[in-house]
């Protein structure tokens, strides 16, 4: 028996999360091909961008706008990636790593690896949870992306299979767990309404990146009004 046995609870949690998240790589792969990207381009996104929200955003905008949407597609993906930066700040204090290992850790810094790591009680488990979940999601997400992309490329017209509706459902699924109080709901509602209001007026892809920051700013504005007491009953997301 080794002196410090690996915590098998952390191992099974990491692999379980990895497999569950990886599975929906299938929907990403199929949607990406339906949006006009090649199988190879789709795979490169999962390997290099490796952040679900940003990946869905970039293919969503490219699918809707074509080559004209390149700049808003990049900006949407970039803005959605901001939260990974905050996970990285947290993980940097936990992982005690340096140099090249940081480059690798950065690539594996996503919602799930941070969440599993953050839910552990000891520092040892926190590190293990990060690396194992990050690696498991990476392997499964990429494998299922390939499967989905290959499936998507033989399916034909995406609307026939409801793949456009699947894209809407995918974004709803990404935002759903974050809608846990009145403030979050109001921000989401304002963002949707403002975006739809701007759609006829602005080139496609732009309304999202304009409306989202305004919705957040409006929430900070609301907090300065008599609405404040009402909003503060609900703690921050």
């Amino acid at each position, binding site marked *: 028996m080794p002196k410090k046995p690996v915590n098998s609870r952390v191992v099974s949690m990491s692999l379980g999360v990895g497999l569950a998240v990886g599975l929906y790589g299938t929907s990403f792969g199929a949607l990406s091909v339906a949006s006009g990207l090649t199988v190879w381009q789709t795979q490169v996104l999962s390997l290099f961008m490796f952040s679900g929200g940003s990946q869905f955003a970039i293919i969503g905008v490219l699918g809707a706008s074509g080559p004209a949407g390149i700049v808003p597609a990049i900006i949407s993906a970039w803005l959605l990636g901001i939260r990974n930066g905050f996970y990285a700040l947290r993980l940097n204090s936990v992982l005690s790593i340096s140099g090249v290992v940081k480059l690798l850790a950065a690539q594996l810094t996503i919602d799930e690896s941070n969440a599993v790591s953050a839910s552990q009680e000891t520092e040892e488990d926190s590190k293990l949870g990060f690396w194992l979940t990050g690696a498991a999601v990476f392997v499964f997400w990429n494998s299922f992306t390939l499967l989905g992309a290959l499936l998507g490329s033989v399916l034909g017209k995406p609307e026939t299979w409801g793949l456009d509706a699947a894209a809407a459902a995918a974004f709803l699924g990404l935002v759903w767990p974050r809608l846990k109080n009145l403030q979050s709901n109001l921000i989401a509602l304002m963002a*949707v309404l403002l975006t*739809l209001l701007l759609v006829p007026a602005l080139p496609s892809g732009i309304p999202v990146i304009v409306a989202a920051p305004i919705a957040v700013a409006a929430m900070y504005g609301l907090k300065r009004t008599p609405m404040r007491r009402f909003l503060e009953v609900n703690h921050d997301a």
Partner: protein
Amino acid sequence: MPSYWIAILVGSIAVYSWKILGYVLPKKVANNREVVVFAGKLTIALLAALTGVETFVSGQALVLDSRLAALGVAALLYWRKAPFIVAVAVAAAVAALLRHFLGWA
């Protein structure tokens, strides 16, 4: 599309820039709660806006079609705590069936 490679590569670098930034900034920044809360709010706004676009927009026009019905079913499933992959697959099936059997847009 060859021009998509630009979006893919620049986009990947852009997303990575946040990830690596967190590992090079001084550790005390990690304790600034305001910044963390702001990032959370922005993420919600972006994902909600994208949900709206994927549901109601076609080109530059607002439309009501099978996607809204499919999204409603997906919402019901998320509310009942169904897994992501199940809700997404069912939403696709709902839209496909409405189009095939009822001729919805």
